């Protein structure tokens, strides 16, 4: 798959069809997921607010998933010095920041009715906030260096440093303070697991979010490739 797509022309031909295909898939999955979301029974404790979960949990999952994507793209661009991988890393950052912000905002909206407060300094909330700061730092570093190749490589080093650090940040914050509920989707004890009426919409929404992320990512990589090609053409035109 990677070996096929490293050729920019093949990538452009593939992504031209794949980006809208992922978009349609995302729309279908999210539409069905939303239908399940609004027809799922109320939670015996949380009532209707449990439905926020289907918006919130996939966003938090995508926040981490997009960081892993950034890490892989950065690794490939740093090791193989491949321009397409760098474009992918650059295109990934605003999307990841947006999903992280979405997780924080929906979490606050859920926290108000359930915990009685918009924000608590709890472990999981704090580590997602640190992740958000990390995205901002990544975007700021890339924007601050004029030379694009150098900016890309410096940003890739920072992304890999972050990849090493994020688990440490996660566990350190856990050690510090935790109020957030534990894992339920992959919980060890059967009685702590999420029941299927909630698991199905959650899975559909998560897959829908992933497809939406994939579609937007491809569109953004394509835009970045076009931008670079236009820049090269402009330079050539100015030189001749």
């Amino acid at each position, binding site marked *: 798959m990677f070996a096929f797509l490293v050729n920019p022309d093949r990538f452009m031909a593939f992504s031209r069809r794949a980006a809208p295909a992922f978009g349609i898939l995302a729309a279908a999955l999210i539409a069905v997921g939303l239908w399940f979301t609004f027809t799922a029974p109320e939670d015996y404790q949380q009532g209707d607010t449990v439905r926020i979960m289907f918006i919130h949990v996939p966003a938090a999952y995508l926040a981490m998933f997009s960081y892993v994507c950034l890490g892989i793209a950065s690794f490939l661009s740093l090791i193989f010095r491949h321009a397409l991988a760098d474009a992918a890393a650059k295109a990934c950052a605003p999307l990841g920041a947006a999903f992280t912000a979405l997780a924080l905002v929906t979490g606050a909206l859920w926290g108000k009715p359930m915990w009685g407060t918009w924000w608590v300094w709890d472990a999981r909330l704090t580590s997602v906030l640190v992740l958000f700061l990390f995205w901002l*730092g990544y975007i*700021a570093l890339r924007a601050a260096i004029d030379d694009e190749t150098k900016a890309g490589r410096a940003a890739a080093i920072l992304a890999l440093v972050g990849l090493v650090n994020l688990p440490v*940040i996660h566990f*350190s914050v856990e050690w510090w303070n935790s109020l957030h509920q534990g894992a339920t989707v992959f919980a060890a004890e059967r009685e702590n697991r999420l029941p299927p009426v909630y698991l199905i919409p959650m899975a559909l929404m998560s897959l829908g979010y992933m497809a939406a992320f994939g579609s937007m990512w491809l569109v953004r990589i394509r835009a970045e490739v076009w931008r670079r090609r236009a820049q090269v053409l402009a330079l050539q035109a100015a030189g001749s």
Partner: protein
Amino acid sequence: MSPLLVLLRRELALAWGRGGGPLPALAFYAGITTLLPLAIGPEPDRLAVIAPGIAWLALALASLLSLERLFERDHEDGTLDLLALGGPPLEAVCAVKALAQWLATGLPLALAAPVAAVMLGAPPSLAPVIVLCALAGSLAFAFVGGMGAALALGSRRGGLLIAVIVLPLFAPPVIFGGGALSQAASGLGGTSGLLLLGAWAAVAVALSPLAMAAACRNALD
């Protein structure tokens, strides 16, 4: 004399010669400590609760101050090119530069930390834990901060950028140090927090030079 030792002496001499050594960072530290009671009120009860934490956080902030000149000036006048061409690997050069940064600012700040905490009303019995935390913490801050300084090479607005990059990375050591201090304040000794902080500092000292050297090479070619 080994080249790295010469480099260390050069870095220390430059830190004392051009920047006044630890004085600016110490003055900044004293400034924050002075402004804090003005902002939240002078009641000793209230101050005593937050004194160790504030002394610890101000240390993290003060160690950001002089990072900008760690690589920037050597990059501008070409010294960094010579260092990269020289005998010792660039990783070792970067480690020595970060070590000199710690000796010139982190170590004096660590010795000032208990004074600031006690002035704000922390019990003097906490002083040993505060010094140990500050020593290990400022070492980690110097190395992780050096990484930010190397990454920000060749950028506009270097100082602000370094802070934005580095502050999220400061989260674990700040948590471990703060945990050790609050454990010690409640009579639990604070060993587990100190051990975690020490482990984090050791990993930072071992791994940061690799990222620093990679970032310097990127800025040089």
